[in-house]
């Protein structure tokens, strides 16, 4: 797709617009403060910079731990071909979450304080530590791609040696903070609407992070295949689609059992502001994707698979927004809608994510065809179904 001359395509214009608006909003945020740049108030202290940039950001990066566990721990090698783009997505995700935090924190220059001022009773403290450590782990998991590019064999060898402990650490840290983002809300039983407040919040956040991790892997592989003109790893993605249905099923059963046990299920059939958002979330995240993905016809169709994955991602974005915004509107008596500056910053961060992904793919060996012979296991594994006969013809 590399063109010799720079041309303004539609998406490039969108990208430039988002960056420009985001930069303008950045100036407002850091010269006039949170009050002027957000619709936050004493009654509604957390908005989309927490809901989307942090809660959704971390969730959307969950493919990293899901797939490294699948490939390196469960030893399912045929998934290896899609592990690099997934780690790239995760690493970019966490870097952008940390970046976005600088906007939301009232005093961003104190962001390092949890390092030395520790409160082990605080979920936020635990999340801060896990995110910090896991971003480091992801940087290390990502580093071989950069090291290979510059052919630095010695550090590459070091990373390969510690890879398994690193992956295990990454999975543990992810399990902890993905669930802890749900634990954050356990302390507000009277403030959060019963659709979303549950003692099982940490479990819901963790299971849905796995679902979104799988869906994001399908999403980003499909998009890359189209955009960069690569061959789609359809058999691998189909298999992810199958696992995704099971995870969604488990989540759905847990969710509705919990609603029933807390006698909140009847609320779902009463007209209210929250009911609409609840069913929107359930339809997008569970009902539609499950109906689609149980059908072999849909799973084996790249477009169907992609569409279902997008639904899951949108569904759980709705879920995180509901937990952190919709669910609080009743008890606070405030209808929160983000100011343009809040949307502009979030838009810029999303645009930056896509752009950085594109740059990384352009300059680094992200996709399997670039993979060097120094990783023989990956080569054999990345060639299921179609090509292996030819590749191993000389064996």
């Amino acid at each position, binding site marked *: 797709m590399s063109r010799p001359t720079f041309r303004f395509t539609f998406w490039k214009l969108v990208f430039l617009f988002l960056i420009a608006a985001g930069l303008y909003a950045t100036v407002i945020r850091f010269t006039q403060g949170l009050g002027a740049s957000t619709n936050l108030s004493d009654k509604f202290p957390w908005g989309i910079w927490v809901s989307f940039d942090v809660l959704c950001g971390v969730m959307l990066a969950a493919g990293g731990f899901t797939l490294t566990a699948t490939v390196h721990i469960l*030893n399912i090698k045929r998934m290896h071909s899609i592990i690099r783009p997934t780690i790239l997505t995760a690493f970019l995700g966490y870097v952008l979450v940390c970046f976005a935090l600088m906007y939301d924190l009232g005093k961003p220059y104190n962001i390092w304080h949890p390092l030395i001022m520790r409160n082990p009773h605080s979920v936020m403290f635990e999340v801060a530590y896990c995110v910090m450590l896991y971003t480091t782990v992801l940087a290390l998991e990502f580093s071989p791609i950069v090291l290979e590019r510059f052919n630095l064999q010695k550090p590459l060898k070091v990373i390969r040696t510690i890879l398994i402990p690193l992956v295990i650490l990454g999975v543990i840290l992810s399990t902890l903070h993905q669930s802890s983002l749900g634990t954050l809300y356990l302390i507000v039983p009277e403030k959060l609407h019963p659709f979303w407040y549950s003692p099982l919040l940490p479990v819901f956040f963790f299971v849905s992070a796995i679902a979104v991790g799988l869906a994001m892997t399908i999403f980003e592989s499909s998009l890359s295949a189209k955009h960069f003109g690569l061959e789609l790893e359809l058999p691998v993605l189909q298999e992810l689609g199958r696992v995704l249905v099971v995870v969604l099923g488990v989540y759905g059963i847990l969710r509705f059992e919990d609603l029933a046990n807390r006698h909140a299920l009847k609320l779902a059939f009463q007209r209210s502001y929250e009911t609409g958002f609840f069913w929107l979330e359930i339809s997008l995240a569970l009902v539609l994707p499950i109906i689609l993905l149980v059908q072999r016809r849909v799973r084996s169709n790249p477009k169907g698979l992609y569409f279902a994955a997008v639904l899951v991602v949108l569904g759980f974005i709705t879920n995180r927004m509901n937990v952190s915004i919709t669910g609080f509107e009743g008890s606070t008596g405030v209808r929160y809608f983000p100011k343009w500056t809040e949307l502009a910053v979030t838009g810029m961060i999303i645009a930056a994510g896509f752009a950085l992904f594109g740059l990384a793919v352009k300059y680094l060996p992200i996709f399997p065809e670039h993979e060097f012979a120094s990783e023989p296991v990956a080569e054999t594994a990345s060639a299921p179904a179609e090509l292996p006969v030819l590749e191993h013809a000389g064996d």
Partner: protein
Amino acid sequence: MSKALLYDSTVCIGCKQCEQACATQNNLPYDDAIAAEEFQSAHKLTNILTRGDKFMRRLCMNCNDPSCASVCPVGALKKTALGPVTYDPAKCMGCRYCMVACPFSVPKYEWGKLFPKVQKCVMCPDRVAQGKQTACAEICPTGATKFGERDELIAEARQRIHDNPGKYVDHIYGLEEVGGTSVLLLSAVPFETFGYRTNISKDPLPMLTYQVLSHIPDFVPLGGMVLGGVWWITHRREEVALAEGRSPVTKKNGGKR
């Protein structure tokens, strides 16, 4: 040992001198416009509400086991042994989790400032440490806000309810709410009239998160063992293949050759 405030709304005359004394104590502005504001904010840490001929005071409850101090990642908010829940702006990084977590929605933020602080009544910790009353209790002309030992104030509140049948709602607000608070309230009309929630938990809320968090130290070695074990088991096939001198390929490819 622990100090507290007892506010008896039936004694209050609504003079708002406590509001003014509080502003002075905390170096905050106070004028007629601010006096008319019926809600707490970053510049008004306590307020007297008026409903007909009834008054009620609102301020930070200074909980015995405060949610805000529990959730603060950097320990900027702290419950002191004497009773006040204090705030250290130098530690605060502005995550505002305290505002989300507080069951009474008390902490307020300086939204208009570039280097904002959380603001709330901190029960005059310096004065209390010197053995003095809080500024609001000292100024109160009728004794509606009374400072003292928590245990003694509870006994006194019970006595007042007992001695004046029908005068009070039979409830000391803050005795049991979220595990008890350092501010105790008496009222002639239901507390809901003034926005005090009465469906509030009797247990301290920080336990809800801590009972999850406290399992983390156990989870880490366990998770490591399980994941390491699974890795060890799933990679056995390759070890066997290597030992037998075959190349460690997947079953699928091996079958095809």
